[in-house]
């Protein structure tokens, strides 16, 4: 039956009871809406600041090293074990062309800084395959500790949208001090990256 809107509602029509939205339903609705808005705000913040901020402490992580590498006799290296030393964390991958341009310089820098005992280089292999990674490490004779980023847990700590290569400098207190997105152009650049944080003798 079509309803002609010019005729007011027929009072003999059966009507559902006039009830507002019950309080419990209102509470749920508003909480859900608020939750959604908070979620979106958090997502936006994360999208805007995907990278760990300089000056913030770096959460502890453990890097399982590739066989053939070791640190202090162990086959893994944890950030907490390295407190008191400067840690240079370099993310790379065998399928990454720019990574290859900085690899030799990084190895040279490592050999120089290893003697001082103040700096540790950690190479984190980001979503890579072991065979190709080994070939890469052999190509450049990498001697500093390298390991795969299992489950991408380590990279997620530093950059939500991790790309390679990226390098992060952590000071003796475990605080992030410098970030380099992209490959180092020269050995001098690596030195300039590390020098400011060395303890003067």
């Amino acid at each position, binding site marked *: *039956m*079509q*309803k002609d*809107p010019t005729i007011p*509602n027929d009072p003999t*029509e*059966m*009507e*559902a*009871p*006039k*009830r*507002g*939205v019950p309080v419990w339903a*209102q509470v749920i*609705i*508003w909480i859900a*809406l608020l939750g*959604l*808005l908070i*979620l*979106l*705000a*958090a*997502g*936006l913040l*994360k*999208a*805007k600041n995907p990278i760990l901020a300089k000056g913030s402490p770096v959460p502890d992580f453990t890097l399982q090293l590739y066989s053939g590498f070791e640190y202090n006799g162990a086959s893994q290296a944890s950030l907490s074990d390295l407190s008191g030393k400067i840690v240079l964390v370099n993310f790379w991958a065998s399928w990454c062309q720019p990574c290859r341009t900085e690899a030799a310089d990084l190895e040279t820098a490592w050999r120089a800084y290893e003697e001082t005992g103040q700096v540790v280089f950690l190479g984190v292999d980001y979503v890579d395959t072991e065979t190709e990674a080994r070939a890469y490490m052999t190509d450049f004779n990498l001697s500093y500790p390298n390991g795969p980023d299992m*489950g991408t*847990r380590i990279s*997620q*700590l530093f950059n*939500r*949208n991790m790309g390679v290569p990226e390098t992060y400098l952590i000071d003796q207190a475990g605080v992030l001090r410098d970030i380099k997105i992209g490959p180092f152009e020269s050995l001098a650049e690596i030195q300039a990256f590390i020098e400011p944080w060395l303890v003067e003798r």
Partner: protein
Amino acid sequence: MLAQFGFGLFVLTFLVTLFSVGAAVAGYFYKADRWVEASRRALLLTFPLITLAALTLTYLLVSGHFELQYVYSVTSRDMPLYLKITALWGGQAGSLVLWSWLMSAFAFAVTLRRWERDRDMLPWVIVVTSVTLAFFLSLTIFYENPFARWWQINGGDLVARMFAPTGGYPVAPSDGQGLNPLLRHPGMIIHPPMLYLGFVAFVIPYAFAIAALITGRSDDRWIRLTRRWTLVAWLFLSMGLVLGMRWAYDVLGWGGYWAWDPVEISALMPWLTGTAFLHSVMIQEKRGMFKQWNMLLIILTYALVIFGTFLTRSGVLSSVHAFAQSAIGPMFFAFIGITFIVSVALLIFRWKDLRAEVEMTSLISREALFLINNLLFMGVLIVCFWGVIFPLISELATGQKVTFGPPFYLRANGPLFGALVALMAIAPLSAWGRSTVQTLGRAMWKPAIPTLLLLVLMIVLGVRNWIALVGFTLVGFVICVTLYEFWRAWRKTANKTSWQILLTALIFSAIILGGLFLLKVKSLELTVLAPAIYLILVFLIESWLDWSKSIDRASWQVLWKPLLLSAVALAVVIIPLIKAMAIVLSILMALFYIIAVWMLARRNPRRYGGYLIHLSMVVMAIGILGMELYQTTTQRSLAVGEEIQIAGYSLRYDSLAQFPYADGRYVTRAAMSVFRDGQFLGNLYPRYDYYEASGQPMTIAGVRSTLADDLYVVLVNWEDISAAQAPFKVYHNPLVNWLWIGSLVFIYGILVAAWPEVEKEKRVGKI
């Protein structure tokens, strides 16, 4: 100069829109119609202003003003003219301009009509549309300005600004980057405008709904006024989705049409609530029920439109589709916050006034089925929304990203969509108010019989996949019910003579078809010819009966010999032309059916148009079922002369050609021959285009399309391709073309449903 002019127009439009909002609110609260009229005129003014600004931008795109950042990023010298025009929506800034232009166009159309009867709602309709328009304009003006140009500042960096930065020096590149090759496909040219048309058109019913809520009206006037808007919005949104599917199928080269990608789902969600809304308003018009549902659904639709637009542009989600991240996220967030909170508050405030008039007494009455319909659509919405939002929750809570892919969505949505298809079959047979199992059964048994036969046939033919059995049976059921309804409508107009004509024509066409079969005409052509022959015979016999009444006996004795001779001569001449005849006859038959169905459907356009749309949906479902359940794929590296086999087909690698092409791409094209049972069927040319300017590769598949399946072959572009050895991937896509056929039927169905009923309005007078 022109760029500043265009930007100035946007700023002016923004100010006019703000005035419109203020004047409407003032007019409502001070009950001053002068102000309301002023705001209405202001809103009307925005349309020519924005049109001029958009035309300015288009001109700048076409004439290659590469000093503008937007022109630089989406056009290049070697692009053809039509692509330069469509590049208007090829990037973020331009697509926002398109959004604003469409919003103002629809606001213009709505505001232009005579408003005497609904003066109380006018201010709020203006406010809602103006606020939405102002929001999108503010995005253009403050964040994504297409008129910003390149400047070089100290240090040699290039920045894009509207006005000169300190120490800035204007720079004009000589050529642009060019449009992303993936976007240079016809589907991509109309897919975004279609989607935006759908999104923006849904703002109008929302505006009216908000106006009704604020003014405290609980009748369905707002629904009547926006009925056609809803239908048009839904048409464009549906076509936008289908075009997106077609583009993905043609251009992305992975043999599929829907990946359950978060951006795809963002466009699907407003469609889900929009479809539920479309159905639900029918109940409010007919039974005065579902008022609360309808308010909720249109608010959700608008919310999902804004939310979807936000998700794809803010960088919160990462996806193949998403626009580059930009700063508009926070603005969108604020807009979402305000509109969601206001809409929900209004709805809760007015909830009790939207009381229903209840007559529903049976769980299988039509009202109850519509209620179940709403529930099912909301169910699909919850699954999709959860799948889109949960990765964000997961990443924020645990730092771990997760992926929601087809297995999750298909498993969850499959049964829900199946239930919706079943509803499409049952609902037309159910009655308003009261319906019992007996009444429903009585209405259902006739179309149920061919459906059961179909099921038996499938089992006999060896179909064992239970999803296929259930799916195709439900699809068949909907088709049978729809045809049955059309047949019943036709039967009312038929009389005894018609029956005799039909029966005679049936007998004669059986004889003719038998003869053709013996003459070895192929069965596919016979199937197409059969209804054509039948209908032509009907026509001939009817004409004969009319004509023979006017001929007397004497003339007959003279006439019958030449008549017989000409019949024989005709047969001798025509039989060799069988194939050409088949094509002509099938076109005539198609036209005949289209016109006949139109005339039948116009008796009750909304009802029969709705049936046609349901029919189109299940035809598309045939394609979807075929693809999801029976698609197969195989990959092999072939040397020249070798063959790759799939699903009874054999494809032979013949040769490879590599050459540069006009618009800056380097083409690698393989030639293949297709065989089945040793018989040559045709050639296919899968291609790999490499656009040197952008470094972007594109895979173009070689496709052989028939009604039964598609043979879809691509060059696997990440292995080495050479004349000696090339890797090929072949997809066998059964029934996929029914997706596109269904979409054509869909357009037809909407036309039937929405075509204005001129005579009725003239007779009854304006309502």
